[in-house]
């Protein structure tokens, strides 16, 4: 009997504590309305208790976030001048010493509990959420697709060739929540009621599997953008483009844009691939040699077999950089691809005398 009584008492106590906890949470977590002061010139009022990233998104202010606010991508950084509270352990792996000293925070990890002052780039205000439908899906290779989206609301988008958007994959099959991933725009800004993305199937990738195996022409999609500062600088310098795999996307957009505007600059495009089956849009890029007065397209294969009868360039792209660069100080490099390739190319470009500030790249996040 005593044991039964003790169990009942313990159950009553724990039950009471649970009720108190629920009630306390309801009131203690009610932060009321909070004001976010942005760049000392714009205020937005939000309901407290949610992440800074979420609060800004609710107000149609879209900071980049490739992981959808899970604290894993590190792209939603912004300067929190005050009101952000202490830096959380979940933020520290993604912030360097300089960023920590400069009050840079991961907006997805900062909870809005009081008024905040933040600083974000003005370009962020140009970022919007778009609704679209899939108008075309093209198989470029066995694992790369080109997907074109026709915008519905808003009907047009203003972006610079080379920038990227964040595509929202809806829940599907076992995926229970929306997934957000960043992809470079591969179409030209002049076609402002469409965007095209070039997407490679990533093993175990949630968003790329959705695109490759489930997305159909006519399906509605949403994305935010444009993001990024990977775009052509308006100088007269020679341009070296370097890309691999789906990294061709922003370069394609840049060249199609230059075709529209006209360009007399000296340009070379090195595209790295393993074998002929990894090449795509070859004829289209060779055709640019007839469009521009000084443009060369050079695919470079790393694993061409004798039976491929490949007569083009092989091995490392870096091998061909010395002959490609005529005036290093007057050369800009635009690169997109795997970090290892970009790192090697950047090292060689610097060694050849290309100024660091002239090397622009879009690494695979």
């Amino acid at each position, binding site marked *: 009997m005593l044991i039964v009584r003790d169990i009942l008492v313990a159950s009553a106590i724990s039950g009471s504590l649970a009720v108190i906890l629920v009630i306390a949470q309801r009131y203690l977590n009610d932060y009321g309305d909070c004001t976010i002061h942005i760049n000392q010139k714009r205020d937005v009022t939000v309901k407290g208790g949610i992440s800074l990233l979420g609060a800004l998104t609710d107000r149609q202010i879209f900071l980049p976030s490739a992981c959808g606010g899970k604290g*894993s991508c590190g792209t939603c950084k912004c300067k929190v001048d005050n009101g952000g509270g202490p830096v959380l352990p979940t933020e520290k*792996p993604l912030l360097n010493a300089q960023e920590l000293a400069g009050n840079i925070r991961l907006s997805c990890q900062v909870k809005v509990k009081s008024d905040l002052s933040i600083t974000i780039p003005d370009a962020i205000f140009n970022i919007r959420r778009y609704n679209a439908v899939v108008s075309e899906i093209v198989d470029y290779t066995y694992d790369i697709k080109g997907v074109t989206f026709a915008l519905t609301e808003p009907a047009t988008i203003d972006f610079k060739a080379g920038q990227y958007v964040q595509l929202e994959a809806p829940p599907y099959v076992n995926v229970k929540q929306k997934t957000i991933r960043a992809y470079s725009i591969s179409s030209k800004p002049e076609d402002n009621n469409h965007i095209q993305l070039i997407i*490679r199937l*990533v093993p*175990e990738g949630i968003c790329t599997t959705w695109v490759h195996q489930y997305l159909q022409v006519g399906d509605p999609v949403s994305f935010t953008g444009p993001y990024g500062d990977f775009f052509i600088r308006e100088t007269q310098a020679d341009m070296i483009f370097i890309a691999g795999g789906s990294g061709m996307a922003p370069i394609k957009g840049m060249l199609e844009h230059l075709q529209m505007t006209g360009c007399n600059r000296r340009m070379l495009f090195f595209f790295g691939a393993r074998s002929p089956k990894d090449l795509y849009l070859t004829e289209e890029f060779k055709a640019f040699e007839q469009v521009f007065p000084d443009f060369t397209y050079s695919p470079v294969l790393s694993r061409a077999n004798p039976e491929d009868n490949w007569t083009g360039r092989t091995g490392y792209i870096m091998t061909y950089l010395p002959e490609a660069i005529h005036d290093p100080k007057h050369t800009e490099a635009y690169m997109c691809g795997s*970090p*290892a390739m970009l790192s*090697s190319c950047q090292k060689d470009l610097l060694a050849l005398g290309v100024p660091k500030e002239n090397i622009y790249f879009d690494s*695979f996040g």
Partner: protein
Amino acid sequence: MKQTPLEMKIQARMQPGTITLSGFLGTDERHYHAIIAEDEQTLARLGKTAEEIADRLDYFTKASWDSFVTPVVIDNLYEVETEITRGKLPCPFTHKGIYRKAITTLTHLNNGIVLRWTTLNIHLIRDHHFFEGTGSPFRLDPEQVVKALF
């Protein structure tokens, strides 16, 4: 079996569609504690530790990190390549830190064993002794790993 809130969170993060498409448990219906316990027993029988295996995997990943052009032959016994794709992955155990989606593929040139792992696998093995569940796309079977790498 009663679970703490943290264990429930970890179990949820290991499910398909949360961090990766297929999750970390595969077709294995056991709790992750049971998977870890059995693999630790296997390692003990084989005379190896999870840390030793993680060190070995890390050695091959680092040695092949720049192999974006061709695979590298290591120690005249292994052909190894590491392919880096877009994105990064968090640890399902809620351990801080994120891991680049870099997939290393190793082929033992004598016995033909092929192993495939990511930088996240190395962390899961070193810090959590977790080789993933049976049927998981990136499950590393301890017996095969020891046979191939030592």
